[in-house]
């Protein structure tokens, strides 16, 4: 049967189980959109292509499926770059289809032509320029396979218009085999046995988990592992939700804005079992001083993560879930003795750190942003999917919303991409229609992709945006306060739109709280209405995020409240 490139694409998307595409049309992709309309695949029309990628990203993180975007050539393609880089840094599976000018025009500086494959080479897991319709089905299959396997990531497929239009005899591609790509899922058993030995010898062990645990679906295995061994757990920002935030063994997040006890424990531990992490500089601070007393175990599926920033005693390349499964089996076979008793002193020390410097703030006459997040946590019983923008709002969300489940905290960790939260919330709401999805935002970040409110309204997505509005680019202001003698250069955002009116202008609901006593009422109302909502919380302008480790300092040297 003869099918056009566009028709073939629909066939493969159906085979891959794609139910939603986030897109924005344009000249060279009209054929594909035309075919898309004939399928059951839902197409979400965003207002900017960056929003399409972030939405696909949120969809992937919340639902665990591969996100899909379809945009046009030229500016459509370049607008996706920030979203792609965000997904690349956080290892999120997305397939991005970009239109391209017809093959015979490539290189001619044709209208809306751009070398998007060249531009995105360093920020995709892999990318393709489809040079013939014959190659197209295999490339789409490979793109999905690469995006979701091994260490996941974004894969871009650039489709010239003639490739989409030409009709060929279509035969489905059965199996994908790439001789140069074989991710290692099964860890080396010998190495795992050494981990058990180290646990037996260790007096002050600590588990440090990251986004890899969530990506491989290993949260339950991690929890089991920690409980069996009675080892306390900290996670990176990306790992929040990999271990229950209400568990007694939970220490809170590690790093620049990590809790006092998590950072002190890292400094004092004699064994650090790191799983699915990459030792980002925001986690380690000064690398020489990081976990300097500890033997370090590092489990990760990506060999390049291991020994990149931190020397490791036991490197283990493998999938987090499979590795933890094996470790749990090995623990059952080994005799660790009375682990609870063994850990007594260590856990008592951690408890002391917790009591001397807990996360804290004082709720006075003005609304404290932390108070808003705490109230939100209370009212949602910790069950909402939280997306964030980037900056102080993100850190307060990470500190004061206690995540008990994976895939519930959706944030731009590696790239730190402002404008991520709102489109990501849209994607998350589509992946999980029955969940409450809240974007914890700042007044600066929200303005970066505010246009996506129109998408939410058009698609009837009841997402909630809680703006912690301090009329500053708060995190940079905080750095200026602490390290630049309070010279608030280009961080005062006191001229912002009226967010309540703005919400209404989009056809959403707008609410505002200016006094502490209004916070709960606004949250209750905002969370209960079935429409998209923007809640504008006028918070204390100069509240800062603490603890804070100055960039480049050891993480045990924290500025406290």
């Amino acid at each position, binding site marked *: 049967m003869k099918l056009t490139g566009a028709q073939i694409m629909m066939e493969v998307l159906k085979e891959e189980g794609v139910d939603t595409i986030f897109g924005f049309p344009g000249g060279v992709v009209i054929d594909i959109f035309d075919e898309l309309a004939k399928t059951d695949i839902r197409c979400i029309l965003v207002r900017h292509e960056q929003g399409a990628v972030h939405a696909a990203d949120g969809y992937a993180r919340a639902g665990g499926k591969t996100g899909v975007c379809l945009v046009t050539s030229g500016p459509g393609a370049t607008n996706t770059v920030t979203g792609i880089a965000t997904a690349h840094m956080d290892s999120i599976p997305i397939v991005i289809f970009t239109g391209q000018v017809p093959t015979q025009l490539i290189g001619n500086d044709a209208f809306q032509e751009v070398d998007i*494959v060249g531009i995105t*080479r*360093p920020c995709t897991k*892999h990318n393709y320029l489809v040079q013939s319709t014959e190659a197209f089905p295999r490339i789409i299959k490979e793109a999905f396979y690469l995006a979701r396997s091994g260490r996941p990531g974004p894969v871009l497929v650039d489709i010239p218009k003639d490739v989409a239009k030409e009709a060929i005899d279509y035969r489905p591609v059965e199996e994908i085999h*790439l*001789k*140069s790509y074989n991710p290692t899922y099964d860890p080396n058993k010998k190495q795992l046995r050494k981990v058990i030995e180290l646990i037996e010898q260790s007096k002050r062990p600590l588990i440090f988990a990251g986004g890899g645990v969530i990506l491989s679906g290993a949260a339950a295995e991690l929890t089991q592992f920690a409980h069996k061994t009675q080892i306390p757990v900290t996670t990176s920002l990306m790992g929040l939700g990999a271990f229950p935030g209400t568990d007694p063994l939970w220490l809170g997040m590690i790093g620049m804005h990590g809790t006092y006890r998590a950072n002190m424990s890292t400094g004092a531990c004699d064994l650090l079992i790191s799983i699915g992490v990459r030792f980002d500089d925001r986690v380690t601070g000064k690398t020489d001083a990081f976990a300097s007393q500890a033997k370090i175990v590092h489990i990760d599926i990506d*060999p*390049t993560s291991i*020994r990149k920033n931190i020397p490791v005693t036991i490197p283990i390349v493998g999938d987090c879930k499979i590795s933890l499964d094996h470790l749990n089996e090995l623990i059952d076979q080994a005799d660790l003795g009375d682990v609870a008793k063994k850990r007594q002193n260590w856990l008592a020390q951690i408890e002391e750190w917790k009591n001397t410097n807990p996360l804290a703030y004082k709720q006075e006459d003005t609304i404290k942003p932390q108070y808003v997040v705490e109230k939100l946590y209370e009212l949602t019983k910790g069950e909402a999917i939280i997306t964030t923008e980037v900056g102080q709002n993100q850190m307060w969300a990470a500190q004061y919303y206690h995540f008990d489940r994976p895939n519930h905290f959706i944030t731009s960790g590696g790239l730190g991409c402002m404008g991520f939260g709102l489109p990501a919330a849209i994607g998350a709401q589509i992946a999980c229609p029955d969940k409450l999805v809240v974007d914890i935002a700042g007044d600066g970040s929200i303005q970066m992709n505010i246009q996506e409110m129109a998408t939410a309204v058009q698609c009837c997505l009841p997402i909630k945006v809680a703006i912690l509005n301090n009329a500053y680019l708060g995190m940079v202001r905080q750095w200026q306060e602490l390290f630049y003698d309070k010279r608030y250069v280009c961080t005062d955002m006191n001229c912002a739109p009226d967010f309540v009116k703005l919400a209404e202008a989009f056809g959403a609901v707008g609410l505002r709280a200016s006094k502490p006593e209004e916070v709960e009422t606004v949250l209750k109302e905002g969370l209960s209405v079935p429409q998209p909502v923007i809640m504008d919380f006028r918070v204390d302008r100069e509240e800062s995020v603490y603890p804070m480790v100055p960039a480049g300092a050891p993480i045990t040297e924290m500025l406290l409240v």
Partner: protein
Amino acid sequence: MEEKKHTMTMLVDNQPGVLSRVSGLFSGKGFNIESLCTAPTMDPRVSRITIVTKANPPLIEQTEKQLRKLINVIKLRDMTGPKAVKREMALICVQAKPELRAEILRIVDIFRCKVIDVGIEHYIIEVTGDEGKLAALINLFRPMGIKKIARSGTLALYREPK
């Protein structure tokens, strides 16, 4: 940590953009390239790239891991040390004044090079050898005046079991 010269070769898919992925990785990660050669192998779908880089051992390890991670890199092998044969070719245009012409030809003979172009004031000499031989030859010609030089960069092949 001490920086060391390091030679690696990789088999890659012979497709447009693959060389750019490899070299882009070096520039993007701040790794250094001393020399780079590429050409197809006996299998026209596969090319061999040879790269000489200079870095400390952890950075070399990271570079190799990053290269292996590229989807189009089929196989990567470390060619440093005696387990591989390494050769480089150079074309050297030497100033050949009448009084030095005989001396130049003697050197060419000793080093088993070839004169491939002769002019009133120059010879172009073709030489193949390892790094040491090329360095020695260049040192001898330098005082006479090297007008131009073109070097291929190192090529390497793993020795087969004897």
